[in-house]
């Protein structure tokens, strides 16, 4: 587990091993920790923009004692690599998280400079983007994290705009809407974001994934089918 102070220490250790410039964007539980929304996180999720930056990080993490169980031959297909040291785990994504959402220029503009040590510059993604990345996963704990982010206050218009911008090829808004339904069902937290999405969902209903809303409950699915 990483607590906020340990994260800081880890960033310094990593910076000490880097010899060439590298910009990383922190998302996930690590980002929530730095924002005071989470006490500790099981792993750190980072995004880099290029393969070159990934290779620099790869070398630095190996020098810092992390091992990479991920076979690099499959790496460029998934654009994700995992590094481990004891119980600590670092997931690094290149440009895209889990073959779903990308780190866009707009997200970079919204990110906040967190730390700058030597060659390493760490940016903290905006809460809205942390939420959006977490909304795409199927992990139960991410529903709780998303609820925590909502309680802290989010700009829902920003989340909607970003989701729509990234939905030209894949309709990520279906995933986002389903996550909002899960949050509402588990934590009783409705949001204005769902109101923004509903007309889009209705308009694109025939393109919905086969298992859309199955994670929430059958009734919600059947009601939509009827309408």
């Amino acid at each position, binding site marked *: 587990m990483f607590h906020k102070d340990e994260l800081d220490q880890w960033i310094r250790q990593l910076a000490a091993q880097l010899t060439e410039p590298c910009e990383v964007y922190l998302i996930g539980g690590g980002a929530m920790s730095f*924002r*005071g*929304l989470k006490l500790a996180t099981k792993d750190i999720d980072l995004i880099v923009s290029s393969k070159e930056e990934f290779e620099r990080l790869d070398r630095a993490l190996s020098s810092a004692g992390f091992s990479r169980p991920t076979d690099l031959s499959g790496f460029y297909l998934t654009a994700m690599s995992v590094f481990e040291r004891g119980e600590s785990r670092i997931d690094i994504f290149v440009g895209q998280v889990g073959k779903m959402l990308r780190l866009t220029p707009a997200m970079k503009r919204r990110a906040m400079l967190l730390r700058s040590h030597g060659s390493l510059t760490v940016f903290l993604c905006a809460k809205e983007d942390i939420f959006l990345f977490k909304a795409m996963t199927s992990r139960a704990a991410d529903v709780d994290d998303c609820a*925590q982010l*909502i*309680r*802290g*206050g*989010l*700009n*829902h218009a920003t989340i909607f705009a970003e989701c729509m911008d990234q939905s030209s090829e894949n309709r990520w808004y279906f995933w986002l809407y389903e996550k909002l339904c899960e949050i509402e069902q588990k*934590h*009783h*937290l*409705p*949001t*204005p974001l769902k*109101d923004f999405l509903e007309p889009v969902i209705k308009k694109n209903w025939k393109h919905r994934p086969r298992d859309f809303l199955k994670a929430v409950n059958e009734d919600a699915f059947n009601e939509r089918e009827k309408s």
Partner: protein
Amino acid sequence: MTITKTNLCAFAHLAEGCADLRSLCRLLGCSISRGSEIATALANERLVVKQRDKKPGGSLDLSIAAAPHARALEELILAHPQTDFGMVLGSARLRLMLVACQDWKDRKTLSAQARVNAKNMLQLAKEALSRGMLMRKKSLFKVNDQGWPLLYRFLCEYRALSSHSKRTRWQLFDESLIETDGSVAVNGSPSGFARYADFGVPVRIANVLYYVPKRQLSKEEVFAHSLWEIKDSRGLYLALTFYVKNRLDQEQVRICAMRYDQLSRFKELIGLLDHRGDRPATARLPAFEADDFARVARLYGVKIVSQR
């Protein structure tokens, strides 16, 4: 009944462990005299207790008051340290949340009761809506008691703060409905079942409901107040009979019911009149049987045509 953003911030520091005026002023970055004003304002709202250290030149100790609303606010702040409650509960926003805490209300009612400009109401509610503290269902708004139970508890306790007694059935700022068996004098206007006789539905009652402050009440208001008195099926049938016999305007009553936090009950009550079964299910009202209602209505000269 108002807590400014600065005062909420001060309260949050006290909830997190700050125990005296000097420390509080350091945390707020203000002068002792300003800090003293803030502490006094919080004490006036019964959120904080001030205690002067008896030693010469001693400090002013501050602690969270034992009052239920103070403890509820403390619990709320400690449970959600990442939420800036000044953005959702500061000044006019608090009035808005207090008005919306018990039942669904439209913008017009919320604005009027919270004494905020109707055009600004959505702007004031924006942060609360964003965090899911306030729910919106088409044109109606209500505090999210399930998603934010601690917030709901604080708002209910704060609303009851100036409650006259345990006999207060409903309270909002300077308006209240007080029930008495006659042993306590109330300077208000009789309402509810006690006034039904004036409108052709005489009812024998043990307690009288008073509306405070004293003023002339319309029959729609009398009816809306009586919704607070419905405790059993008999009361339900009497209310329905009153509604039908006096041909009350549904929209006028809906507005009154909203004002007195009875919209959900009123909607359910109207649903009973339109229902086609013998025993429709009721969530907020006592059990209803169509034949029993028809019998009570006949006593008052109201013929109920069966919809079966």
